[in-house]
């Protein structure tokens, strides 16, 4: 368990600032976020029967991962997290749609299998798009971008606070679990009574920390108002060109059928 917490801490630190290298890093985060949203809308609008057309949408992600110097294989492995729940929904299609649509090497392929595979493929590609955005941009620039796109500043502040305290909370959790594991053979999951003690203790520590932070903020004359990012970056020609090129590419993938 503590090894998986280490891995989570590593991943959190990885996305703290994002990969600042690569050509794409010079583009404003607002433009990148907008393009990611348009990409996802384009992907979702493709019929689940068109599995080939859905697969093509992975190609620009591989290209962008190279451009942003993000390891595509790690992106792929991290995107598999989404599979269990999606596979459950896909299973319903396999059970219900039993009409045979093709035969491959003597194996009858049903409509349900095509739909299930299309859902899983669409899920993996959409998750990769989000991961690529966050890994190439970083959490703080994304929050700034979301505020620039109209998200209320209080919610942006909340996102940044949760993110900041998350690392502290996970370290606290590691301490608690190390203590629990040293007193019982380290288990992957705990009996309910011990679990309640661990979570309750974590909650008390969290509230204690919140009180200290509140006092520190008041000591710095914080009056309850939410600070607004003093973002000097402005929308330049390169962002406009990036948007036009990306939207053209997405439209081509969406509307041109190579069959």
């Amino acid at each position: 368990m503590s090894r998986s917490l280490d891995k989570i801490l590593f991943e959190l630190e990885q996305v703290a600032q994002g990969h600042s290298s690569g050509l794409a890093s010079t583009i404003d985060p607002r433009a990148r976020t907008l393009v990611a949203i348009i990409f996802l809308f384009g992907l979702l609008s493709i019929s689940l029967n068109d599995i080939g057309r859905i697969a093509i949408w992975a190609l620009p992600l591989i290209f962008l991962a190279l451009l942003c110097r993000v390891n595509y294989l790690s992106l792929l492995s991290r995107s598999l997290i989404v599979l269990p729940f999606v596979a459950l929904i896909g299973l319903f299609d396999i059970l219900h749609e039993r009409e045979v649509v093709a035969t491959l090497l003597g194996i009858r392929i049903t409509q349900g299998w095509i739909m299930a595979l299309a859902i899983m493929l669409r899920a993996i590609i959409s998750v990769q798009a989000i991961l690529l955005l966050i890994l190439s941009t970083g959490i703080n620039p994304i929050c700034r971008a979301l505020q620039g796109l109209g998200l209320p500043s209080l919610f942006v502040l909340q996102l940044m606070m949760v993110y900041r305290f998350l690392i502290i909370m996970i370290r606290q959790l590691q301490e608690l679990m190390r203590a629990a594991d040293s007193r019982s053979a380290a288990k992957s999951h705990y009996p309910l009574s011990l679990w309640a003690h661990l979570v309750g203790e974590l909650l008390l520590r969290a509230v204690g920390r919140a009180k200290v932070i509140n006092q520190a903020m008041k000591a710095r004359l914080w009056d309850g108002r939410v600070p607004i990012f003093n973002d000097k970056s402005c929308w330049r020609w390169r962002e406009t060109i990036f948007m036009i090129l990306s939207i053209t590419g997405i439209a081509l993938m969406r509307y041109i059928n190579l069959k």
Partner: protein
Amino acid sequence: MHMSDALVSAPIALGADAIAATLLAISIRKIYRQERLSIPLMGVLGAFVFAAQMINFAIPGTGSSGHIIGGILLSSMLGAWGGFFTLCSVIVLQCLLFADGGLLALGCNALNMAAFSCLVAYPLIFKPLYRADCSTLKLFSASILANIAAFLMGAIAVTLETTLSGVSALPLGRMLLFMLPIHFVIGICEGVATALVILFVRRRDPELFLHDQRQSSPRRTIEAFAIAAFIIAASFTLVASSAPDGLEWSIENVLQGELPSPTSELHTSAELILQKTAIIPDYNTFLAGIIGCAILIFATWLISLLSKRVRGDESQS
């Protein structure tokens, strides 16, 4: 229960995003109106929920494990809107940091996981039943009932969203048959886990759960359930199946035909009475559900009024 972008169509995602954004805007207005801004507490508690979801507990007798989601727990400390606001921030960060749930499906996830637990189950079930000094049994009952309701509503919403998106080919009824029992069990586990944490923390720091001392009256809950009953009765009778119910279907299969009508005098006179008293035979109008609900509510109200009077008379004497 995090929904990926692949499970929703663009119109459904946009619709859910719009509803979730409206609820979020209302929650922000409510939080700004609070006398004491609890932003640091919300930030740290958001991180706490995130971290607490990483510890799994063993589910007795199943060999599997689960973790807390935290909607009712957060609401009991921050209030319904504060809990919703905090849980939404957790859902957004889970999407951005771990790709758990989709970017476009954020609205769906906020509704399924945060809105139903914090804005429906907490104020209508948990809050009227729970008091700071209530017994352990009452705490467990409130927590389990509220969490079961939240999970079942979430499961129904997931089913509706995927079916309306055209992602699942399975009919709505059959998919609900798969989803509801699983989420009922998850609701019980979440309820027990939430109650255990509240019990532990209440012993150490009782003030933590005293943020909202105004006890909501059970009348509000009754009104909400009455409205829900009317909505379900009015909408579901329109889409109800005309096929025979389970008992009729099995009898027809066993007898290879319809059950013959009994011919005894008693049966005939009973049927005559029924024909005279049944105002909507065979539910043959969509108003049947609404009229049924109204009669039932009226009858319940009448019985409770009479029992109150009887109890009043007994105490006077």
